[in-house]
């Protein structure tokens, strides 16, 4: 088997194992395995509105996931997609509310650019610390993510709060209907063309440009890349910037699409799920598209389960966790014969 095919097969096997383990737990708890699968299929595809909802949820996962792919290509682990997504959405909201009388096309364009800018800024700070000082980016992107969550919390509970809003969770004012690019289903030709275009652009960038090649080289072996004459810092900063830009864009799409307003802690899991999406997609653009649709479907099924079956939604959160828990297992690490002492010494 070639290396690529082997990785595809091993990932599929691991996702399959996660399914089986979850099904086993549910079966022990008295649900039939058929019920589990029919619940997932109905909740993600066949129930009324389920397929649309699957696509709606795969859009932010795909955009943030592509950002994670770019980061990993250059050897960086951007785990802060959630915060970048939030500050992006907040900036787009600020532009749209502050200039709500402007021409729709211009305002949406400015708002989207603001979102991309904010997402970029949010990941460039950890990126700069990483390439300049070697500060661990997992920690800093995670911290920036928490700060971004608090920024959203502050804005929706404070300056941008909708004063007439009631209920437990604070929410912002709604943006004018004319600014929205989809209805509340979150899917429209505009959005699909936009997201598809972004995926193609990312693919072109990674596979067909000098910069993409430089990123791959830096990710594989920074020392060698430097000797080849690549400016490692610049390439690293570029990767961080693009990664944050995509997450910020996802925030704008969320606001102008299904959201229309921001609620404290909306879509709480997309940042982390996007990392899993990118890994299940084997860090390739098209693999990420497939895996984003898969996880989008799972997310939709979580929301639809109470309608279509009596299987409780947490069962799918469990499945989701199981996939994340196991998906990075390496088959090479599983040995049928005991390792020789030399191999063992090299492993640590």
């Amino acid at each position, binding site marked *: 088997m070639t290396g690529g095919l082997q990785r595809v097969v091993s990932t599929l096997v691991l996702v399959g194992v996660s399914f089986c383990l979850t099904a086993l737990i549910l079966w022990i708890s008295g649900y039939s395995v058929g019920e589990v699968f029919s619940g997932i299929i109905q909740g993600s595809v066949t129930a009324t509105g389920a397929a649309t909802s699957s696509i709606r949820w795969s859009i932010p996962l795909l955009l943030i996931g592509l950002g994670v792919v770019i980061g990993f290509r250059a050897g960086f682990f951007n785990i802060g997609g959630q915060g970048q997504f939030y500050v992006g959405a907040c900036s787009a909201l600020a532009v749209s509310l502050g200039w709500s009388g402007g021409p729709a096309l211009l305002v949406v364009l400015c708002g989207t650019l603001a979102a991309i800018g904010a997402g970029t800024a949010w990941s460039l700070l950890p990126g700069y610390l990483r390439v300049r000082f070697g500060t661990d980016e997992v920690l800093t992107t995670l*911290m920036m993510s928490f700060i971004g969550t608090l920024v959203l919390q502050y804005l929706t509970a404070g300056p941008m709060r909708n004063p007439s809003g009631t209920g437990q969770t604070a929410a912002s004012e709604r943006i004018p209907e004319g600014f929205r690019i989809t209805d509340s289903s979150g899917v429209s030709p505009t959005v699909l063309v936009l997201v598809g275009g972004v995926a193609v652009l990312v693919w072109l960038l990674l596979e067909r440009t000098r910069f993409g090649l430089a990123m791959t080289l830096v990710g594989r072996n920074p020392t060698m890349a430097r000797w080849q004459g690549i400016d490692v810092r610049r390439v690293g900063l570029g990767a961080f910037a693009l990664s944050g830009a995509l997450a910020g864009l996802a925030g704008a799409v969320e606001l102008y699409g299904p959201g229309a307003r921001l609620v404290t802690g909306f879509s709480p899991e997309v940042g982390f799920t996007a990392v899993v999406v990118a890994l299940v997609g084997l860090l390739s653009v098209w693999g990420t598209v497939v895996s984003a649709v898969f996880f989008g479907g799972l997310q939709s099924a979580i929301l639809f389960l109470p309608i279509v079956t009596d299987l409780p939604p*947490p069962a799918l959160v469990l499945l*989701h966790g*199981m996939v994340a828990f196991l998906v990075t297992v390496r088959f090479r690490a599983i040995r049928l014969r005991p390792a020789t002492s030399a191999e063992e010494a090299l492993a*640590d």
Partner: protein
Amino acid sequence: MEQILATTLRSAAPLALVATAGVFAFRAGIFHLGLEGLMIVGAFTTVAVGEATGSVELGILAAIGVCMVLSAVYWWVIGPLGANVIIAGLGLTSIGLGGTAFALGAIFDRRGSMFTEVVLPRPVSGITSGFGVIVSEHSVLVWMTPLIVLTAWVVLRRSRFGLRLAAVGEYPFAARAAGVNPSVVRLQALLIAGALCALGGAELSVGALHNFTENMTNGRGFIAFVAVIFGAWHPIGAALAALFFGFADAIGIQSQINITERVPREFVLMIPYVLTILAVWLGGLWRRRSLEAEAGYAELREPDR
């Protein structure tokens, strides 16, 4: 003011316990993002077994057992099976949150939350005025937390195990050369971390409250993880960081009651994250080496994806 301090202690205790767990994992070179999952499993198991047996002690013992088993599985996945530490940790968190919410429905046929009569004793209670309020109404686990943190410090600083742990975390190659098996030491550290997470979860469900609620940890596991870094992976530092987070939480609760004098709580809560970034950055700059080498988890990182 007394009320704020009392709330601070109550919020800080579970954070400090879980942060101590994180310190053990961090010293072994593991970025443990599964703390949240273990914590909620601890909270649920204590309530579930406590309700079934009528004994809170049995509940806590069962919680410790379950969390240690999960920690062992986590070790198996990230160690021998070579999975990514961070992704598997996040997965463990999802498994904990989803699994407990599911089990609540499957075992007790409840949705959302469940009340329990089986709770931890409160050594001092009933004081309603003066400085006594600060120490009143705390569960026995809150009282034990400083002791647990100090014990952790002694173990890490003064015991053979603590020294081995430091060696494994800082330079596993040297540890191996000295005849220490890094894999086994990591397992031990994760088992201790699991037990401490169970205690933190138990304090949340049967110490501070009388119930288990879906997602009741509400990100506390991640805050505890930040406390570990903010406290420079020292048990006492992490506990002080937890105290700070508890204080920020208490201010938030008070300012919600007192709506006119609203402190922008979010900004108070941001301080530790900003300081953590600064600390991680300056720490690396000052010692001329990156945190990656400090945490020594580079060897646990996957080389090619």
